[in-house]
């Protein structure tokens, strides 16, 4: 794969991650800029320090924004923004 193709593939994931970060910041009224959240940082407990109520809010937000229902998913889908990106954009998961 050429470097341009690799950059295009990375851009697709980064775009999905960016969309998720904006959604998290907006829905949870966080005071940080979305890009301050890194793709790999933990979301619950450590990291962004979200709690179980935040999870419920995110379930609703993800379904509204991406049309993906995660209600029965394992908590591991919230392991990081990038992991969440795999769920809301399955095309990424095929390569991750």
């Amino acid at each position, binding site marked *: *794969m*050429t*470097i*341009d*193709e*690799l*950059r295009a*593939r*990375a*851009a697709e*994931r*980064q775009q999905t*991650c960016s969309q998720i970060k904006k959604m998290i910041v907006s829905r949870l009224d966080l*005071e*940080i*800029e979305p*890009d*301050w*959240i*890194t*793709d*790999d*940082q*933990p979301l619950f*407990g*450590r*990291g*962004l320090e979200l709690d179980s109520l935040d999870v419920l809010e995110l379930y609703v937000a993800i379904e509204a924004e991406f049309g993906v229902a995660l209600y029965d998913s*394992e*908590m*591991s889908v919230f*392991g*990081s923004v*990038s*992991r969440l*990106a*795999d769920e809301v954009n399955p095309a*990424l998961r095929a*390569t*991750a």
Partner: protein
Amino acid sequence: MASVLASIHPEDTVYGEVGDATVPLRFSSLTEEYGVLRERAALLDLSGHRLIEITGPAAVDFAQRLLARDVEYLTSDRCMMSLVLDESGQVVDQVVAFGREDGILLESSCGAGTRLLEHLQARKEDGVEVTDRSGDLTALGLEGPYSWGVVGRLIDGELASLPFESVVDTTWDDVEIVFARTGLTGEYGYQMIVPVEAAAGLWQRSLEHAQAAGLDALELAMLEVRQPIPRHEATPGATVVEIGANWLVDITKDEFVGRDAVVEAFENGGGRRTVGFTGCTGVPAPGTRVQAGGQDVGEIVYAVHSVGLDATLGLARVEQDLAAAGLELSVGGMPVTTLTSPYVVPKSWGIPII
């Protein structure tokens, strides 16, 4: 600084020099200790983590200025992890700050205590006392999906289900200890800060319910959940943003040492980013070049053999527009694949505390 528990560790314990500390790397084998940490309950000798007390009427203001996260209202029943930066935004250390009635207690990362202490002493102000407590206090850790059960058998079952980063002053065997729900590996984790003279007794009693694990297993499990390890990741010149440790910095805080440099690095937007990878044969050394499509795009930060993945696992620092999971890159001529964090899902995420 030798472990205060060295005299009771088995003779065949493998020690290593990590910064200013001599710490147990392995008590048995990495595979066995990793298995204990990920499947049951591991007991950790954290005596390589220096304990530094900040007291005095200006203690909280001082800590608030020196730590990158907000500790102004850190009460004595809470702790938090934070970076400590220098004026140029470089990482001095990653600490756990414990709120105390008379100030704040800092726990350094492994082997970084001298550097942290010197950094604090050099910036000390009137009304602040900075005291190294490592001569009379030490820390033991418990990590694992069933470490909560050990807490119940050892001290009090109710402590096991404390919220994350809660702290309780309690007693063990009539000895006053500081007990905290912490965690570095994604598994249930706890720390006990105990007087040095009681540490051997608590260690031996803990071994009746848990198995000792050394730094090798702990750091591997930390890497697998992308918990920053400053001694590996804070390479000279790397910014907080390049390291990916943003979450250990409160960018909304008005002022702290290093803030301007961090904000500048963030707003500039350029530079490299850190991404996990697996693949290749063997473990590439830090600094090994990383290629994409035949072009040089970065370097290896560090890598190990992951027992959980049964493969090489590492971090690479690459050009920002290539720092994403799911890419086929090349390290030393061998293919690697970038990964989504966490690289290994902790068992604790699927096990409730009963």
